[in-house]
């Protein structure tokens, strides 16, 4: 099959089927069987269809037409397809093929345009490379599992009378309402559509469109229990925090748009057959050997910007703000664009400092947490960083790395003290996303993307397992669980698989391990590789190792508290039961993926390597920070780095598991005593580093205050100016009226009388009748008299 024509069609079909399902459920969801059970089946059908299309695209079209790069050193075999793409010819980079990777194969095009202004175009289009296809498969497979699981999990919503125990009405009863089964699946379908939209997007504007759409789906899904105030607040928080990120993204987009004039990722031919260059080839032109080089528009724009004058003439020489010795032309703008786009990713992927929304988002039903808030949507931020990777300058990458590093550490520490099972997993998600960002920021493109895929499977699995537990014991609090291993073995052991995968369990220095083993080790290797060439950033080398230790600790703490030991709440324990097969089935499937997806025989790594953006393999140096070097990813595989990094990762993870076992399994140390002895630290972590409080005082309150000021200003200043001028007008017109209509004397007398009357009325207000106030008036009057006299004396009476 010809990939050029079939891939877009297949993926578009996979993309649009959930939309169709959404539209059908919106219009007819109510009528699909009792409480809309048919909507669930329709939605499952849609996503499974998507999955089938995606898998066909992967195994039927992509893999047969594209060879894996045999080895790193080998030259790129020139691509055989003749698509709309201008595939790179090999002459230009064959001479330094070691440092420069080949052009990835991609297919891009536009479906339709949102608006065209001269050469500017905002379009809806596609950009398909191996990463796109891999993401499609990952998203659709996980989404299918979650949809099926949700059929069981959301079973309560099928009842005519759903009792929401978390909502207490003013009458003191719990809320009774009709089930909303179909609505849940309606949102899920819309979400799948939007998520696929991000993945397939052919330009940044389209990414932004679907970025907002997944945001709103997330809003609906977090706030699915609309009656719960906590849920709707969490939904608002999620959306608004994401909007803050989007604000940054808009700035990045503006910087790009006004300097480069296009949003498209790849090159495409227009109707006239000319090639319109996309962002990637504009920013990494062939002439500079695919290294980042700001185009002329960007250099001019930066000059204009630093000149500060919007009408500054282009003919000016370099402005004084730029040091002529260094080649920073356009680099600042590039940096702004990169960091701006990254801001969007910070919001969506819940990175520090915008990570606060994700834990609260756990108010949504568990399948949502599994699909939206761990496997796919939050990973979209990482995906966008990966997609936009060629356009990040080394300095922007360093920012990304530091943000990732801070995030992974903060989130991991908070997860240590959390007792809500879903919140532990949420913080773990934040932490893992931090790993991915770190990896990308350090130049580990494949490592980051690889972790994105493996993490999606095992974190989805972990969430679904936690959902299964919650379904059984009706609480999120781990302190009420314990010993559930015997009651629900499938859940317990699949979750154990997930835990092992996330800590990266495997035989060190071998090729045997669970999926997390491969991706996590790759990240740590990349970090060490980076640390070895940039000793000034050593913290980026050690943070992931420390993170690995904490990860292992809290994941096994979670497992032990839930499944091992003695049941702490016998009542709940007695009622617990293994979940139905519709729920355990997806668990087993995902567990299989969590074990095996990273195995070299499945070539996920090689598939991603195919999609590596051109020019990103070679080591690059910063232009603004001249001592910054982003190492080539292949340098991390040299034994000098790989062996110590692998051992460090293994040992720390093992240590974490051991510590967790000592405290929570063997109970050699009493956790409560530990809590007491580290009380300040525990309190700090328990309160999540006080981020919520801090933001409340720093941002939310001031915003509200400013808004009240604005409203006050409106009512009291602008309006009173208005009223005063109206009153003056009225008074003036009255005076004129009196002068003209009546005799002058009468008018004067009347004015005087009314003036006296008015004065009297006004003075009346002073007559409060309160003795004490009068005394105050006397005192104040005396003071005023003194002051007046001294002023008069000082300024108005000439000194003789």
């Amino acid at each position, binding site marked *: 099959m010809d990939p050029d024509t079939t891939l877009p069609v297949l993926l578009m079909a996979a993309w649009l089927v959930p939309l169709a399902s959404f539209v059908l459920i919106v219009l007819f969801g109510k009528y699909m069987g009792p409480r809309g059970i048919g909507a669930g089946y329709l939605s499952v059908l849609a996503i499974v269809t998507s999955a089938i299309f995606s898998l066909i695209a992967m195994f039927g079209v992509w893999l047969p037409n594209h060879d894996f790069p045999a080895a790193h050193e080998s030259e790129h075999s020139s691509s055989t397809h003749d698509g709309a793409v201008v595939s790179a010819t090999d002459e230009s980079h064959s001479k330094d093929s070691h440092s420069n990777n080949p052009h990835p194969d991609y297919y891009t095009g536009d479906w339709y345009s949102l608006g065209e202004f001269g050469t500017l175009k905002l379009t809806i289009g596609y950009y398909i490379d191996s990463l796109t296809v891999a993401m499609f498969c990952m998203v659709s497979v996980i989404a299918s599992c979650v949809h099926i699981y949700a059929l069981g999990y959301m079973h309560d919503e099928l009842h005519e009378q759903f009792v929401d125990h978390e909502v207490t009405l003013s009458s003191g009863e719990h809320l009774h309402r009709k089930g909303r089964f179909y609505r849940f699946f309606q949102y899920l379908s819309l979400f799948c559509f939007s998520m696929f939209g991000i993945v397939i997007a052919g330009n940044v504007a389209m990414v932004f469109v679907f970025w907002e759409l997944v945001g709103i789906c997330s809003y609906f899904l977090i706030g699915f229990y609309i009656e719960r105030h906590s849920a709707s607040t969490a939904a608002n928080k999620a959306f608004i925090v994401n909007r803050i990120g989007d604000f940054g993204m808009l700035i990045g987009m503006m910087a790009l748009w006004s300097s480069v004039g296009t949003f498209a990722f790849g090159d495409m031919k227009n109707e006239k057959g000319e090639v319109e260059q996309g962002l990637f080839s504009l920013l990494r032109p062939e002439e500079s050997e695919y290294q980042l080089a700001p185009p002329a528009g960007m250099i001019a724009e930066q000059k204009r910007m630093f000149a500060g004058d919007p009408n500054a003439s282009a003919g000016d020489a370099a402005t004084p703000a730029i040091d002529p010795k260094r080649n920073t032309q356009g680099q600042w703008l590039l940096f702004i664009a990169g960091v701006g786009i990254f801001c969007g990713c910070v919001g969506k992927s819940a990175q520090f400092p915008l990570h606060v929304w994700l834990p609260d988002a756990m108010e949504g039903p568990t399948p949502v947490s599994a699909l939206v808030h761990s496997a796919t949507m939050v990973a979209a931020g990482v995906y966008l960083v990966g997609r936009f990777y060629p356009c990040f300058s080394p300095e922007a990458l360093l920012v990304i790395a530091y943000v990732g590093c801070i995030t992974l550490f903060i989130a991991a520490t908070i997860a240590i003290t959390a007792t809500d099972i879903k919140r532990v997993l949420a913080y773990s998600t934040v932490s893992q996303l931090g790993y991915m960002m770190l990896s990308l920021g350090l130049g580990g493109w494949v490592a980051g993307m690889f972790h994105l895929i493996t993490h999606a499977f095992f974190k989805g699995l972990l969430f679904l397992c936690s959902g299964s537990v919650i379904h059984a014991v009706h609480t999120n609090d781990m302190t009420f669980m314990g010993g559930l291993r015997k009651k629900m073995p499938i859940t317990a052991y699949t979750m154990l698989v997930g835990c092992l995968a996330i800590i990266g369990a495997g035989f060190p220095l071998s090729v045997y391990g669970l999926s997390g083993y491969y991706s996590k080790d790759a990240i740590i290797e990349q970090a060490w590789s980076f640390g070895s060439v940039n000793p000034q950033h050593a913290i980026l080398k050690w943070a992931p190792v420390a993170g690995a230790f904490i990860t292992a600790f809290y994941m096994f703490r979670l497992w032990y508290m839930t499944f091992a030991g003695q049941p702490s709440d016998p009542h709940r324990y007695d009622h617990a039961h293994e979940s139905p097969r519709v729920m355990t089935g997806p668990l087993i499937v995902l567990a299989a993926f969590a074990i095996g997806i990273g195995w070299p025989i499945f070539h996920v790594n090689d598939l991603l390597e195919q999609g590596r953006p051109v020019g990103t393999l070679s080591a690059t140096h910063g232009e603004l920070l001249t001592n910054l070097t982003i190492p080539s990813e292949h340098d991390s595989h040299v034994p000098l780095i790989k062996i110590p990094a692998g051992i460090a990762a293994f040992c720390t993870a093992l240590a974490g598991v051991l510590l967790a076992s000592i405290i929570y399994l063997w109970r050699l140390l009493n956790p409560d005593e530990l809590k007491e002895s580290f009380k300040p630290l525990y309190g700090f972590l328990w309160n999540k580093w006080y981020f919520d409080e801090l933001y409340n005082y720093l941002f939310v309150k001031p915003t509200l205050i400013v808004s009240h000021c604005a409203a006050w200003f409106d009512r009291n200043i602008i309006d009173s100016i208005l009223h005063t001028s109206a009153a003056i007008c009225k008074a003036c017109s009255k005076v004129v009226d009196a002068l003209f209509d009546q005799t002058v004397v009468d008018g004067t007398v009347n004015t005087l009388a009314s003036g006296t009357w008015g004065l009297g009325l006004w003075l009346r207000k002073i007559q409060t009748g309160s003795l004490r106030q009068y005394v*105050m008036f006397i*005192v104040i009057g005396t003071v005023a008299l003194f002051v007046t006299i001294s002023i008069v004396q000082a300024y108005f009476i000439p000194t003789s």
Partner: protein
Amino acid sequence: MDSIYWPTFFFYLFSGLACAFAVAVLLSSNIVRMAFYLVLSLGATAGLMFLAGAEFVGAMQLLIYVGGTLVLLIFGVMLTSQERFVVMKTWAGDWVKAFLAGGALLFILAYAAFSIPEWRGIERTEADAIVAQPTVTPIAMGLLGARTDDPSRAGYLLPFEIVSVHLLVVLIGAAYLARAKRSRSSIEKI
């Protein structure tokens, strides 16, 4: 350094007492204690008057004021001092406003007092030379209409008469006002 000029020492002593008890009157919320502090403050003021060379006025201060007026006041306190009126708290806002205004006035007055050089007081040498003149006789003569200090000026007979009559009228009025009423309503209330 010169030796201590004792009148100054006593001035500071008495003025300190007077001010301190005046402030105590202000700050105390218990009406009984206030009355007590007031007595002390007024007594100390009498001392200041003695120091200023007005011994007759000082004596009158002690006799009429401390001895008479304040006893009247204390009667008033006793007549009305039911449990709920002994301590009446003032609102904090009132305190703040009052202190702001009072502070401003005090600043202005003190500033004005010290900004006039003639008011700064006499030199030590002059002070040591002072021989105190008794004032009782001049006052008594003045009240009778004859000035001993400056015969060309008139005495104070007329004001004295006016004050006397005024005092009489006032006392009658006070007695009239203060007489116990037996209105119907108050009987019904009981």
